[in-house]
């Protein structure tokens, strides 16, 4: 019950901040919207300003806009995007599949492979000498630089993969093999750029954690009892994976925020690209809508990790039931 109240309060505060932050941006969104059209008549400008302010609901006092926003949230309606002039929920619904398809596999695969390789590196000198420098290079590589490098080598020079978009412009989006193959073809480079950077992070993290765990008192104690090296490593891995799991949950929680840099570099039609457009164009409603998805994603991820910890870590389970470990 206490947890539920905590989550509800967090949701209320985050939603209010979500509404408030775009309003702190300088400039008036209606003026910015109209400035794109090079209007050379004051009469037309004034008429349009009135119509557009009314249609976007920004002609009322701020408190009224705030209440309208909550009404919208409860009805799952975030208004019309200034920039795309389409319903925000519709635009987000179009973008989410691309972001999920890009980031969920990249995060999960990099998590599993990174942890595995990192753990192996922790106990094999030869592998460590290879994984450590490669991991550091990938981890330190800025997404944008890596993405541009991949695009230049594999798209422009070798022409193995297309440099941008979610699928070939000439292929209709639908249940057809041509679209599926095209979407996969376009997915490879953005996927690789996220995967490689994340892989570097996970593997370095896991390597360091396992080395730390292998040097702890319980590991030494186990070894002194004559436990096999294999058993010691299993326990070390199990303990080392806990912080990594928290990291995974957080990474998955913000997955609906997309990866702005990668999506912008590859013009990948996901939520990261949308956030970029929304911020640069002061698109209140689009920004608020996307942030709502992120808020809900983060809260859900935290909720899931709370439960997962209970399942995975017996100490948490015991503390929840009031017992002492």
């Amino acid at each position, binding site marked *: 019950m206490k947890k539920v109240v905590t989550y509800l309060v967090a949701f209320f505060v985050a939603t209010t901040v979500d509404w408030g932050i775009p309003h702190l941006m300088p400039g008036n969104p209606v003026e910015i919207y109209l400035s794109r059209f090079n209007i050379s008549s004051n009469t037309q400008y004034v*008429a349009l300003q009135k119509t557009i302010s009314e249609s976007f609901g920004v002609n009322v006092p701020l408190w009224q806009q705030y209440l309208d926003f909550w009404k919208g949230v409860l009805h799952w309606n975030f208004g019309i995007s200034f920039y795309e002039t389409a319903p925000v929920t519709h635009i987000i619904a179009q973008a989410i599949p691309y972001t999920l398809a890009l980031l969920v596999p990249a995060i999960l695969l990099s998590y599993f492979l990174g942890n595995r390789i990192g753990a192996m590196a922790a106990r094999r000198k030869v592998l460590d000498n290879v994984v450590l420098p490669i991991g550091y290079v990938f981890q330190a590589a800025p997404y944008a630089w890596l993405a541009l490098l991949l695009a230049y080598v594999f798209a422009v020079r070798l022409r193995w993969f297309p*440099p941008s978009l979610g699928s*070939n*412009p*000439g292929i209709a989006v639908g*249940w057809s093999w041509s679209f599926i193959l095209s979407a996969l073809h376009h997915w490879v480079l953005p996927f690789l750029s996220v995967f490689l950077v994340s892989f570097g992070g996970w593997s370095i993290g896991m390597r360091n954690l396992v080395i730390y765990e292998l040097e702890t008192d319980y590991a030494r104690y186990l070894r002194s009892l004559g436990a096999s090296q294999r058993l010691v490593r299993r326990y070390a*891995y199990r303990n080392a994976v806990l912080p990594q799991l928290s990291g995974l949950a957080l990474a998955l929680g913000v997955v609906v925020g997309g990866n702005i840099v990668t999506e912008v570099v590859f013009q990948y*039609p996901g939520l990261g690209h949308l956030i970029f457009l929304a911020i640069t164009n002061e698109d209140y409603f689009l920004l608020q809508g996307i942030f709502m998805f992120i808020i809900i994603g983060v809260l859900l991820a935290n909720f899931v990790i709370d439960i997962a910890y209970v399942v995975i870590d017996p100490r948490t389970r015991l503390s929840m039931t009031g017992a002492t470990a």
Partner: protein
Amino acid sequence: MVTRKTKSVARLGAALTAAALTAPLLSVAGSGAASASRLPFQGNYPRGETLYTSGTAYSQPTNFNPNDPGGGYTGTMGLLYEPLFLYDPIHGGYKPWIATSGKWVGNSYVLQVRNGVDWVQSPSQNVVGTVTGNDVAFSIKLAMSNPSDPWNSNVSGVASVSASGQTVTVNFKGTPAYTEWQDYLWHAPVLPAAQWGAMSATDQMSGANMTPVSTGPMTLDSTSSTQACYQTNPHWWGAQLGLSFHFKYLCDVVNGSNNVELANLTTGQIDWSNNFLPGISVLVNGLGGSSAYGIKTYYPKAPYMLSANTAWLEMNTTKYPMSNVNFRRAVAAAINPQSIVSGVYTNIVKAANPVGLLPNLKSYINPRVVSKYGFSYNPSMAKKYLAMSGYKGQKLTLEVPNGWTDWEAAIQNISNQLNAVGIKVNPIYPQYPVRENDLINGTYDMAIDNNAQPDSTPWSYFQRVYNLPIQKQQNATLNFERFTDQKAWALVQQAGHTPLADTAKLNSLYSQIETRFLQDLPEIPLWYNGAWFQAQSTVWADYPSALNKADQYTPVMWGGWLGAMTTVYALAQIRRA
């Protein structure tokens, strides 16, 4: 135990991965109900039958209404809706389009509407009617009646409109605003009275219009978040002029960043790009002279591009020292536009005439006025003017929108030159909305701007310089420099009310305005931004080009070009490579 748990987690991960990979497909299944306003996808567009264009749209296709403030998605004017005339900026003159002729009779303008022009429904391509004088009269009356209409000010002097068969008579109150009416003739769409008359006032101005009834060379076939695809209209009247398209489809792709656009062009994903691509001249010449990328531009060598608008240095003339004419003269003499042309733009643009009028308006520029009052790069003269201005070394800013990389580089160059003569200028790069806010409210020192768009007369250029009165918020794109010159504004208005055929009077008026402009320097024209056009010759050929007279058409899909100038002629020239 650990192993079993890890395996089960791994299996879960694999399942999630698989689910995520198929997520885009799931969205497709659900998109039908969610997007009732969208056309369904109707299949693929074969590469050999499709012209891919880009460089115009920056947001997804959600509107095909030519009255919308944004003018609808690329192709709304030109491919779907058409004006009465087209303007040819390359050779000069107007081409009859939906009208076959138009002439002044006293204070009335009499139009003859073309016969055999069909209204065609998208996407079915069914003919639903024929264009009559009544449609043209309806379109003009609509513009008169609604202040939100983009052409409302162009028809503000119209008293009445009547149609009889294919003849339309437009009667004006008092002396007509000839120039603004002329602009209406080659910009405004002819709308279907039957369909548009049945809409609400809001829909008439900004309804999405996703199943348009139109006259143009193509019909709307499908839309997605990244493109709109058109199909050639078999009922198009263009055969009357011997025009037809040799591609079956045209897909206009939403613009990405410069680097994305460049990659798309070089890899042949798009054929025709109107995006600014830095350093394109290097690729056009081929790396090492090999021309390996197959990229064509309008001119094969410098300046590569036609000129599209004038980039000028805009000073807030209500603030000191920008309010001092000698200070403005000092700034003008301190800048070497040629260094920007070659250093920043690698010669894909041209330095501007001191008056700033585009090359197509050369006949309106008085060379005697320019040679007498014009400015040129002269740092020692700049220092003299600066001394006369009383400038005391105040720190000033020069701003351009963040991310406009060519302008960012240009103001670094300009700031260095200004600092070299003793004007302390700091280049700043605020986000676009912040910069717009600065211009609208007059809270800036200096900025680079290009708000006068191409026109067939100098009128709109000087309107943007001299429009009065100045308001607290200069919302419309007029007189952002906040310069007050009642005499010049009166001359601009007089020019607007002078018949275009009276060239002697117009030249006299514009000479007077040019004189005042060069003496006062309310704006400092620096260079002509290009009508960016790059084409990939892998799939299609015979693009617009200065080399061949038959290909000398405007190579631009932007609003105000396609469906106003000769871009449709250019499209009709394109053949398979």
